[in-house]
């Protein structure tokens, strides 16, 4: 079975690159490597991951500067060819800034950084990233962000809802997407979205931090399992 090539892109200020590398390395069928943001042609990969962190110190806007890095051209091409591209936390912000995903992430309505475990509901299993989940399954994943409030205008939101492009919603333990379960004020409790072709996923929760019972949850494995199963199928 040919090994799957997975790239973890490193921007100046990324800090979850180590955790993403470790998460993917737990799957023997994967060959994972770091790709430096200044590398204009890093080569072909089966999967690309944009990790969390504070790319360029999150100055101006989270991900505002990272999107101009030389590596972005290859990432856009990777997405255009329909291969899986996962942006986590700061990675999600970079995908929005680069126009690969609609809408924007901005300051939490509590105005403070929040790091805690939350529940999110998988809205569809018809995607490369969630096919290993049961429909409507509630996952226990940690969040850690200060600018995770998702915003899109009404027209875009309608398109996301109708197109089944909403990947995860913040919810309570029983799966109810209530306002009380919304940690940052995101519209429609959105925690993660797909592009139209559903090969690009941006999500604020950190699946790479939920890969081991010792860390409090293994639910993050479902996302990596789905992605790798889809690619090797």
């Amino acid at each position, binding site marked *: 079975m040919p090994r799957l090539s997975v790239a973890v892109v490193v921007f100046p200020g990324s800090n979850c690159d180590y955790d993403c590398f470790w998460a993917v390395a737990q799957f023997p069928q994967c060959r994972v490597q770091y790709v430096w943001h200044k590398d204009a042609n890093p080569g072909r990969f089966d999967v690309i991951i944009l990790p969390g962190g504070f790319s360029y110190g999150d100055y*101006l*806007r989270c991900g*505002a*500067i990272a999107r*101009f890095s030389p590596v972005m051209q290859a990432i856009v091409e990777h997405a255009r060819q329909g291969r899986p591209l996962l942006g986590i936390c700061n990675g999600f912000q970079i995908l*929005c*800034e680069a126009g690969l995903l*609609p*809408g*924007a992430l*901005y*300051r*939490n*309505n*509590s*105005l403070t950084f929040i790091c805690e475990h939350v529940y999110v509901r998988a809205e569809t299993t018809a995607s490369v990233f969630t096919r290993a989940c049961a429909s409507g399954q509630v996952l226990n994943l940690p969040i850690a962000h200060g600018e995770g*409030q998702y*915003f*899109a*205008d009404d027209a875009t939101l309608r398109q996301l809802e109708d197109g089944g492009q909403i990947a995860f919603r913040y919810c309570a333990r029983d799966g109810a997407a209530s306002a009380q379960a919304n940690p940052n*004020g995101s519209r429609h409790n959105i925690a993660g979205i797909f592009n139209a072709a559903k090969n690009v996923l941006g999500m604020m929760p950190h699946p790479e931090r939920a890969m081991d019972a010792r860390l409090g949850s293994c639910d993050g494995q479902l996302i990596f399992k789905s992605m790798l199963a889809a690619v090797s199928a």
Partner: protein
Amino acid sequence: MKAHIFVTLKQGVLDPQGSTVQRSLQQMGYAAVQSVRIGKFMEVELAGTDREAAATQVDEMCRKLFVNPNIEEYRFELR
């Protein structure tokens, strides 16, 4: 030459910082305050004196880098 750029959140986009500041001002007794919106103010110093060229460049910088069109709008002045 100096460019003063003002980047503010679009109408309809909730401004958590602005509403928090508004509430605390009212608690501090400034009843006259009706609304507060907070944005970014940038001073960019540019070499050269050709106002035409500077205006185009600053506009380009705004659209490319300074502004996220989903949630922000901008205006600028050349000094």
